[in-house]
């Protein structure tokens, strides 16, 4: 039996055949959409959680701590699968979607937000801890309240110092969107699974998708890393 990995003489043509026979770009576009919406949602929810985590109200602190502790220790796969088998199938939460595809997409985004927000919250909290005590003390000394101290003094500085950590969360999120394949969202990993099972050139299929993710994550990391260094408050 000849090895299925023998390099085809016209490997380039095969790549083009893939792009025609399968909607590779469409799948990666789905990955990008999942990432963008989840990133936005988890940034908002994560910031709220971080605010609760450092708030003067013990109950809010407790809630945010428990939320973060629980969510970070559950596999993302469990959460994503639950949104489909639990929220949608049992509780009938369709999130206003009329067809199955849109519903899967929205459920996946919901799951990613719930999960990623915990990491955003921790990144922000570590950022808050990098702001020197004197900043908060000075804010209180001129009579600012807790929410003013947080909004006007601490968070603006914290956000600048957490661009690096948040970039890592974003890159992890980009890679994590592949988990949506578990509930049939037609993103990159979902397409790769069917392609790798049906095509003879396993290595080539793997290379195409690996390349796609390198293209998505590497520039993000480099750009945000550069931005983080530029924006960081020099102390």
């Amino acid at each position, binding site marked *: 039996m000849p*090895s*299925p*990995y023998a390099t085809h003489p016209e490997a380039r043509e095969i790549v083009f055949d893939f792009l025609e026979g399968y909607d590779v770009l469409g799948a990666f576009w789905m990955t990008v959409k999942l990432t963008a919406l989840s990133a936005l949602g988890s940034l908002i929810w994560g910031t709220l959680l971080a605010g609760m*985590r*450092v708030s*003067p*109200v*013990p*109950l*809010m602190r407790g809630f945010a701590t428990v939320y*973060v*502790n629980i969510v*970070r*220790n*559950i*596999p*993302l*796969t*469990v959460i994503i*699968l*639950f949104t489909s*088998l*639990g929220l949608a*199938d*049992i*509780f009938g939460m369709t999130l206003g979607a009329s067809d199955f595809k849109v519903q899967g997409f929205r459920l996946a985004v919901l799951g990613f937000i719930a999960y990623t927000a915990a*990491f955003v919250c*921790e990144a922000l*909290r*570590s950022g*808050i*801890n*990098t702001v020197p005590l004197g900043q*908060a003390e000075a804010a209180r000394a001129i009579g600012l*309240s*807790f929410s003013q*101290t*947080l909004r006007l003094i*601490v968070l603006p500085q914290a956000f600048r110092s957490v661009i690096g950590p948040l970039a*890592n*969360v974003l*890159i*992890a999120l980009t*890679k994590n969107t*592949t*988990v949506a*394949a*578990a509930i049939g969202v037609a993103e*990159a*990993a979902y397409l*790769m*699974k069917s392609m*790798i099972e049906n095509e003879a050139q*396993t290595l080539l299929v*793997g290379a195409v*998708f*690996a390349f796609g*993710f*390198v293209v998505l994550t*590497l520039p993000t990391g480099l750009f945000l890393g550069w931005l983080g260094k530029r924006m960081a408050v020099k102390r």
Partner: protein
Amino acid sequence: MSSVLYDTPGPRAKRRNVVFSVVFVLVLALVAWWVWQKMGDKGQLKWDLWEPFTTSEAWTTYLLPGLGNTLKAAALAMVIALPLGAFFGIARMSDHRWVRVPAGAVVEFFRAIPVLLLMLFANEFYARSTDVTSDDRPLYAVVTGLVLYNASVLAEIVRAGILALPKGQTEAAHAIGLRKGQTMTSILLPQAVTAMLPAIVSQLVVIVKDTALGGVMIGYTELLSARQTLAANYANVIPSFIVVAIVFVVVNFALTSFASWLERRLRRSKRGTGAVLAPDTVEDNPAAINGSYGAGTYA
């Protein structure tokens, strides 16, 4: 409770905090009540669905073997990935460009790729080009995927661990005439291993969580896929999800707590250089929640 962000509450602040607390409790209670109602509506609160978890059958037939497989894959992946990671981590710090650059490229490449892609690829590779039986294949594929990804993450941990050591260690080693290899194996690595322990243990949490991917996508019979068979048998989707989530949280929380205990112990210890790599040094790492960030200055 005082913090840097706010003063110790006086009478007015105390009153305001009570109001906030009450409102917050009301909102939480409302949400909880709504969830409870929904669960009741859909019949998910019926004791029939929960009762299986009080019997030994559900545990011995489904959950414990599943958990066993989860831990098996995680342990195998860690044991194989550690030496690989150490190799690439050290290679990346080599003085020779032709060693450093390829090692760096390999590490960055595998860190940029989702672990699911690696698992899918490994699964297909084993199916086509090796004679691994189809029973063993899922385990092989899961472990391979996890090893490739985590070796590259561990390589970064190893590198950070070695860099965290005081420079005097290397200088002293050179001063007493040790060669580069000797400095690495008898001075730097032994100390770096201790410094890395917390980070390594918390990387184990990431590995345990990622095994669940293998359950859904390539049919490895770990805890999450054991849930599927269990739910098919007892028709208890929601309860089984909740129980499996609790099992994962307990296992991972134990690992996380162990990691932060290790970290605190290492920081306290008089021996050694005092260099410790916090569990959250590496991206995407559900680090120890308490104790890893500036000793809780703010909350």
